C-alpha cells in the first residue's frame, strides 16, 4: 500500500579511515569519527581542508578510495546516494525553480511513493516547523535568501531522516540573519532529535551550534571534541589559531617543577604554565587567549610593554602590546566601561598560570 519504508534507525554515524585522492593529492586523509545519535557534529576548517569532500562521501556523491561509512551499524559505503535515506541541505539551497515551495518540500516523499494524504500532512508539518506555511504556493524566485534556506531545511527533514547533512547552509546570508537562523536550526534539530553533520568555515557558527567539532586541515582531523574543550585546550598551533584569536609565544622549556614548567623565550622572557607532557629543552609555544590577559594586577605571569595598536570592535577592544622586541601579544578587553590604555602608553598585563597551555608543533 505505501511505498518504500522510511528509515527507522537512530542516526549513529561511523566514519572509518576515509581516504580520497584527486590525482596525486590526498584530499581526505584517514578521516575517522564516531558520531552519536542526535549529535550536532561540525566539520570545521579552511577551504581545501577536505571537509566538503568528506560530507559528499557520507552523502554518497563521492566514492572514498578506501575506508568505510556505517549508519546504525550498516555499511553504506557502496550504497548509491538515492538509497541512503539521508537528508541534505546544500550551500546554494538547490531549490527546484520550476516547482513551488509545497512541491519542493514534497519531492523526497514523492520519490518514496508515499500516498498523497500522507504527503500533505508531512509537508504541512514541515512548513509549520520552519514557519513558512503561508508561502506554500510561492516559487523560489519570490522568496528571500532566508526563506529559501528554510525551504531547503524543510525539504531535508520532511521524511524524518536519521541523519541530516548540511554544507555551509548559512554562508550566503548576512550576519544578523545568520545568527537567528543558527538558533532556529539548533532548535529544529533538538526537537526532531536528528543527527546533524555540519560543514562550515565559520568558527563562531561551529561553536554556537555543535555538540562536538572536528577541526580539519589538509585532509586530516586535527582535533575533535566539545567546543569549550577545543577552545581552551587546543592540541596544536593550527587549532589554537583557527578557533578564535590566539597568542603563541615561542621558546624552550627551562625547568619543570610541581607540575609547572617555565618557558624561556629568545628575548629573555620567563613564563610559567601547567607542564603537561613537555620535556626540558623542548621547543614549544605558550598558548594564551587574548581575553584571558588582564590589565588589572593579579597573580601569575606578568609582562610589561608598550601598547602598539587599539581596535574598537564593538563588543570588545582589541589591543596589541609589545612586551619584547620579538613578542607582540593580543589582548581583548570587554567594552564594559573601563577605558583601555591608548597606543604608546606603557602597560602591564597579567594572567593566571593555569590558563596557559604548552603546544608542540
Amino acid at each position, binding site marked *: 500500500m505505501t511505498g*518504500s519504508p522510511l528509515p527507522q534507525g537512530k542516526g549513529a554515524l561511523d566514519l572509518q579511515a576515509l581516504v580520497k585522492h584527486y590525482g596525486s593529492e590526498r584530499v581526505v586523509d584517514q578521516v575517522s569519527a564516531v558520531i552519536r545519535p542526535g549529535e550536532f557534529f561540525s566539520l570545521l576548517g579552511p577551504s581545501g581542508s577536505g571537509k566538503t569532500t568528506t560530507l559528499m562521501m557520507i*552523502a*554518497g*556523491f563521492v566514492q572514498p578510495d578506501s575506508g568505510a561509512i556505517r549508519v546504525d551499524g550498516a555499511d553504506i559505503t557502496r550504497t*548509491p*546516494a*538515492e*538509497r*541512503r*535515506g*539521508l537528508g*541534505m541541505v*546544500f550551500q*546554494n539551497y*538547490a531549490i*527546484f*525553480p*520550476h516547482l513551488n515551495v509545497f512541491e519542493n518540500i514534497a*519531492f*523526497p516523499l*514523492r*520519490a*518514496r511513493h508515499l500516498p498523497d494524504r500522507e504527503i500533505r500532512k508531512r509537508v504541512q508539518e514541515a512548513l509549520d516547523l520552519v514557519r513558512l506555511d503561508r508561502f506554500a504556493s510561492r516559487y523560489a*524566485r519570490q522568496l528571500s535568501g532566508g526563506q529559501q534556506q528554510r525551504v531547503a531545511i524543510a*525539504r531535508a527533514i520532511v*521524511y524524518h531522516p536519521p541523519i541530516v547533512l548540511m554544507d555551509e547552509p548559512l554562508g550566503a546570508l548576512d550576519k544578523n540573519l545568520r545568527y537567528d537562523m543558527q538558533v532556529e536550526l539548533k532548535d529544529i534539530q533538538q526537537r526532531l532529535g536528528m543527527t546533524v553533520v555540519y560543514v562550515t568555515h565559520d568558527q563562531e557558527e561551529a561553536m554556537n551550534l555543535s555538540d562536538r567539532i572536528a577541526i580539519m586541515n589538509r585532509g586530516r582531523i586535527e582535533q575533535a571534541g566539545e567546543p569549550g574543550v577545543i577552545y581552551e585546550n587546543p592540541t596544536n598551533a593550527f587549532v589554537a589559531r583557527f578557533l578564535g584569536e590566539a597568542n603563541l609565544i615561542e621558546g624552550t622549556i627551562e625547568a619543570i617543577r610541581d607540575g609547572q614548567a617555565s618557558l624561556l623565550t629568545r628575548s629573555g622572557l620567563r613564563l610559567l604554565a601547567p607542564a603537561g607532557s613537555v620535556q626540558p629543552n623542548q621547543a614549544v609555544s605558550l598558548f594564551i587567549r587574548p581575553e584571558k590577559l588582564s590589565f588589572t594586577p593579579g597573580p601569575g605571569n606578568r609582562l610589561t610593554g608598550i601598547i602598539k595598536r587599539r581596535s574598537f570592535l564593538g563588543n570588545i577592544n582589541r589591543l596589541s602590546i609589545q612586551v619584547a622586541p620579538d613578542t607582540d601579544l593580543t589582548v581583548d578587553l570587554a567594552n564594559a566601561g573601563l577605558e583601555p590604555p591608548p597606543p604608546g602608553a606603557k602597560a602591564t598585563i597579567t594572567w593566571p598560570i593555569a590558563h596557559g597551555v604548552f603546544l608542540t608543533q
Partner: protein
Amino acid sequence: MQAIWVTNWISLVVTVTALLLGYPVAYYLANRSGPRFTLVIFCIVVPYFTSIIVRTYSWMVLLGTDGLINDSLIRIGLIQAPIKLLYNKPAIVIGMTYVLLPYMVLTLYAAMKSIDTNLLRAARGMGASGAMTFFRIYLPLSLHGVISGALIVFILSIGFFITPALMGGPPDAMIAMLIERSVEITIDWSAAAIMSLLLLAVTLILYAIYYRLTDIRRLMGA
C-alpha cells in the same frame, strides 16, 4: 492552398524529428567532455558550414534509384527493384532534418548546459531514481530549450526552398517554391507578393513568440 498545408505539415514533422534526434545528442554533449565530445561537436557543426546545396545533393546520392542505399539493399537481396526513396515527402523530411539538426542540437545544448547540476544531485540525494530525476527535474528544466529549438527549426522550415525543390516531387511543393514559381515562371507578381507576405507574417509571429519566451526565461531566472 495545398502548399500551405504541405508546408506546415512537413515543417512540423521535421521539427519533431529534429527534436527526437537532437535531444539525446545534446544531452550527451551537455554531460560529457573529452575527445568524444570534440568528435560529436565536430560532426554536428562542420556540416553546418557546408553549402546547403552540397548537403542536399549528397542525400540525393544516397537516396536515388542508383544511390548507395538502394544499391546495398539490392545486393544483400532484401529487395529486387530499387524503391523510390527520392522525390517524395519522406525524402524532404530527411533532407531538411539533416540540414536543421545543428540548430536544434546547439539550442538544446545551451539550455541543458544552464541546468544546475546541484539540482540533479539534490534530487538523487532525496531518493529520486534516475528516471524520476530525468522526467521530473531535468526535462522540465530543459523545456525552454526544447521550445526555443522547435521554434527556430519550424521558422526555418517553413521558408525552406532548396531542399524541397531538389528532393521533393510535384505534389510536395512548399510555399517558398510556389513563390519562386510565381516570380520566375507564371510571372504572377500579385500571387507572389501575397504568398511572401503570408510567409513573412507567420515568421514574424513565431519569432515574436520566441522572443517573448527568451525574455520570460530571463525573468524567471532560470
